[in-house]
């Protein structure tokens, strides 16, 4: 084995999006030497794509808002599957996290009296989202990036080196969390095995605490609003390190993504289009959403187009139009219309504002949408309708963490925050709660990782096991000598990783997508097994220097693991709730609310932690009962409402 460079740090943060950077800032401010490692350039993380805002009950626009209302909205949005403690911490701490950004230089849009302006959003009772136009995510990432630079400038003055206590390893990938294996202790985190994308050089960051902040899994689906980085790396790293994932069956499909041209298929069309008056029509020109109002919502939504139209001007005396039903309802309706043959030419439906508002108003209220369609699709939304369809947007599931400390269950030294962590959003996330989640739990993860690392006396730090490093290196290099290396399934041809990726995306999209059925999911699991076998033969040409084919081959392992989690958990949960819709079990079932599904690796026998035979199941499921919600929090709800979610037995106790 070649000599792999090793560096010692106190805390390693994997991922440089909102959660990762917030964690790194916290760990460094606690005095820990902190390394951040990210796949893209510093400042390019997927957080920049967030448009709407950061949900925080500051009450700047409506004084009635407070953390309790925010907590209530969040629990309703997640259909009570949220971990109550996470939802509580999130709602309580979000305002402080937003205000703190201002002290680092963030410039939010203002209210007339000079405070941070807040906007309305789906599911939030009051105007709550701190925002900067429709580029809030960019503001967030840039502010955190610049705060990191400012800490580095401090270190430069003190130690003469910018990187002395806080370093960003950009364009590097972590392939394995390394753990100690000694007689005395076993299983604590010892570091991370990484490679530099530019050179292909391997290196190890030794640290007792690792924070996962890698975001989501959207790249396993064909139509997604997510970037290439979203290959479920952190989810897979946690699994491989022995930590379970929770709620993986819940994947949010946003109802309106672009469907044309192919190059931008999946890119988000913001909810504000409908909020401002946009309507959905099928190829017959019919506003079909009126046919899809479920019974439970019949009272709250307009029955006629006239009434719906009046709501925009007079919301007190009219009911809102059904285009503004929850995301899952709208996504399902669009799906049904397309399947019935009433879709648009490119397989979506029409979202029209052009006949609803004067061109000048559209340009003023929806500048980025106007720009996006003009530049990318050559469509002038002031003159014609947009074509839209559902797009994979967010995964509610993730690493099972302690709500207070963000520590991953069962692996000392491993922490997770942001989209990669599960529990906070339950079965469905509200718009705006993602950015606040990043900040609240990013800070907590950084804080408790730092405390954990600081508590270890230097001599007692876990040591990296050289055999694990060797295994990690061999695993990463396999794509260069792929053909015929699998003794269990010999003889197959070398596989193109791009082809495998496309087949995976297609399968997940078609078989474990927005509407799920048992036979299709079973078929998906077969397909995944087949892909795992073929992925062992995924080979690449060229050398290790900036070789995207090789990078994809490595990421495929993660996507396959995560996809299997989604498929197995979705097959198991026999109800429909939030981001999990079963055609064969269309109702929400109160008994299922008490159940969390945990995904774990199926075996821990081999050196790699994965079964030797790729055709075997890699994931096994466990059921766990949800913890009871604290009484004072339950009192925030009407009993009638609770009765929809909690079983009679839970209610009576």
């Amino acid at each position, binding site marked *: 084995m070649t000599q792999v460079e090793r560096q010692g740090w106190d805390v390693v943060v994997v991922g440089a999006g909102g959660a990762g950077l917030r964690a790194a800032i916290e760990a460094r401010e606690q005095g820990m030497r902190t390394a951040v490692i990210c796949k*893209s*350039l*510093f*400042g*390019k993380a*997927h957080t*920049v*794509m967030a448009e709407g805002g950061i949900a925080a009950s500051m009450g700047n626009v409506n004084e009635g808002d407070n953390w309790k209302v925010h907590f209530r909205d969040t629990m309703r949005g997640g259909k009570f599957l949220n971990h109550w403690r996470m939802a509580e911490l999130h709602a309580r701490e979000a*305002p*402080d996290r937003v*205000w703190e950004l*201002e*002290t*680092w*230089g963030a*410039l939010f*849009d*203002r209210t*007339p*009296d*000079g*405070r941070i302006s807040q906007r309305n959003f789906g599911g939030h009772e009051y105007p709550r989202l701190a925002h*900067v*136009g429709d*580029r809030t995510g*960019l*503001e967030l990432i*840039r502010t955190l990036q*610049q705060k990191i630079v*400012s800490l*580095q*400038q401090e270190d*430069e003055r003190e130690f003469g080196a*910018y990187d002395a206590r806080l370093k960003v390893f950009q364009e590097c990938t972590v392939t394995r969390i390394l753990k100690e294996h000694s007689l005395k202790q076993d299983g604590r985190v010892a570091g991370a095995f990484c490679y530099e994308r*530019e050179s292909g050089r391997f290196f190890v960051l030794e640290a007792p605490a690792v924070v996962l902040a890698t975001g989501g899994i959207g790249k396993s689906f064909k139509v997604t609003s997510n*970037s*290439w*980085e979203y290959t479920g790396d952190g989810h897979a790293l946690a699994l491989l390190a022995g930590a379970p994932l929770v709620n993986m069956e819940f994947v949010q499909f946003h109802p309106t993504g672009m469907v*044309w*041209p*192919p*190059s*931008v298929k999946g*890119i988000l069309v913001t909810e504000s289009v409908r909020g401002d008056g946009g309507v959905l029509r099928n190829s017959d020109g019919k506003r079909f959403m009126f046919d899809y109002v479920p019974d439970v919502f019949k009272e709250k939504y307009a029955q006629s187009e006239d009434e719906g139209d009046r709501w925009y001007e007079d919301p007190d005396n009219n009911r809102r139009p059904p285009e503004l039903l929850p995301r899952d309802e709208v996504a399902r309706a669009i799906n049904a219309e397309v399947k019935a043959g009433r879709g648009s030419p490119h397989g979506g439906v029409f979202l029209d504002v052009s006949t609803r508002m004067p061109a000048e108003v559209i340009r003023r209220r929806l500048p980025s949408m106007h720009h996006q369609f003009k*530049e*990318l*699709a*050559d469509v002038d939304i002031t003159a014609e309708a947009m074509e839209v369809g559902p797009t994979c947007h967010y995964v509610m599931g993730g690493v099972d963490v302690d709500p207070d400390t963000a520590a991953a269950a069962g692996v000392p030294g491993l922490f997770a925050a942001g989209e990669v962590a599960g529990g906070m959003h339950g079965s469905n996330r509200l718009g705006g709660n993602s950015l606040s989640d990043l900040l609240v739990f990013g800070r907590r993860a950084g804080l408790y990782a730092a405390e954990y690392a600081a508590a270890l006396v230097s001599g007692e730090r876990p040591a990296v096991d050289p055999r694990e490093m060797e295994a990690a290196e061999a695993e990463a290099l396999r794509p260069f000598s792929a053909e015929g290396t699998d003794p269990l399934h010999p003889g197959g041809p070398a596989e*193109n990783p*791009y*082809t495998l990726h496309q087949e995976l995306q297609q399968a997940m999209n078609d078989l474990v997508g927005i509407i799920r059925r048992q036979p299709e999911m079973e078929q998906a699991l077969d397909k995944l097994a087949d892909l795992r076998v073929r992925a062992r033969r995924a080979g690449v*040409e*060229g*050398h290790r*220097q*900036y*070789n*995207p*084919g*090789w990078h994809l081959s490595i990421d495929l392992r993660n996507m396959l693991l995560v996809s299997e989690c989604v498929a197995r958990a979705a097959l198991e949960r026999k109800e429909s709730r939030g981001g999990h819709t079963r055609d064969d079990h269309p109702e929400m079932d109160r008994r299922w609310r008490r159940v969390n599904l945990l995904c774990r690796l199926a075996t821990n026998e081999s050196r790699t932690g994965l079964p030797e035979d790729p055709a075997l199941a890699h994931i096994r499921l466990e059921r766990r009962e949800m913890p009871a919600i604290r009484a004072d929090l339950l009192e925030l709800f009407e009993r009638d409402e609770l009765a929809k979610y909690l079983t009679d037995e839970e209610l009576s106790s």
Partner: protein
Amino acid sequence: MSSYDAHFRVWRGDAAGGALGDFTVEVNEGEVVLDIIHRLQATQAPDLAVRWNCKAGKCGSCSAEINGRPRLMCMTRMSVFDRAETVTVTPMRAFPVVRDLVTDVSFNYAKAREVPSFVPPADLKPGEYRMRQEDVGRSQEFRKCIECFLCQDTCHVVRDHEENKEAFAGPRFLMRVAELDMHPLDAAADEGLDRKTAAQDAHGLGYCNITKCCTEVCPEHIRITDNALIPLKERAADRKYDPLIWLGKTIRRRRSG
């Protein structure tokens, strides 16, 4: 509209050398240059190195030069080219090349570190900040920057003169200085830092000859020259070349002293 085969020339190589390679590749309706590069990766050149991320013009990763013009590959639609036209794609030519279309942009990160950060006002706690919309508007425009570094790439001060890289921060980071100087609550002055003079003395504002290429290439349509660089030059002129202001300051200093 149907598919067609386009002729592409893509630069391939590394720091040791390289050349434009010819490819014939399928193009479908509505595609952008980045789609074609991805198709090349998937079908003809699996190890073709390219940096990209959001594919929606929001992250600023896929900067390159297309037919000699600095642009984002994800925001350059194929329909702007003639079907018979050869499309030439090269890496940004102001930065050291790493491989194929990927360049070493560390110059920009080094320059970012040289700009002193926002200084929070000492007397305000978090949550106490009050700023009017009209006071934050100017800096907000500059904060639309997605750091694609196309302005840094096209700026002839460093593109054509490597030796100027040390003294010159480039449009992106001069704009950052302007952003902080216009921030209504930045308290740098209280700490003895004058961003206006620093712009000229430490960040090389004088090198800029306002030929506006930065503004021309900006995919976010930020008016870098008119709204950041020229105002910054005028602010520096206030400090250094305006005898009236100098006189006024001297008199005030005498009085208070």
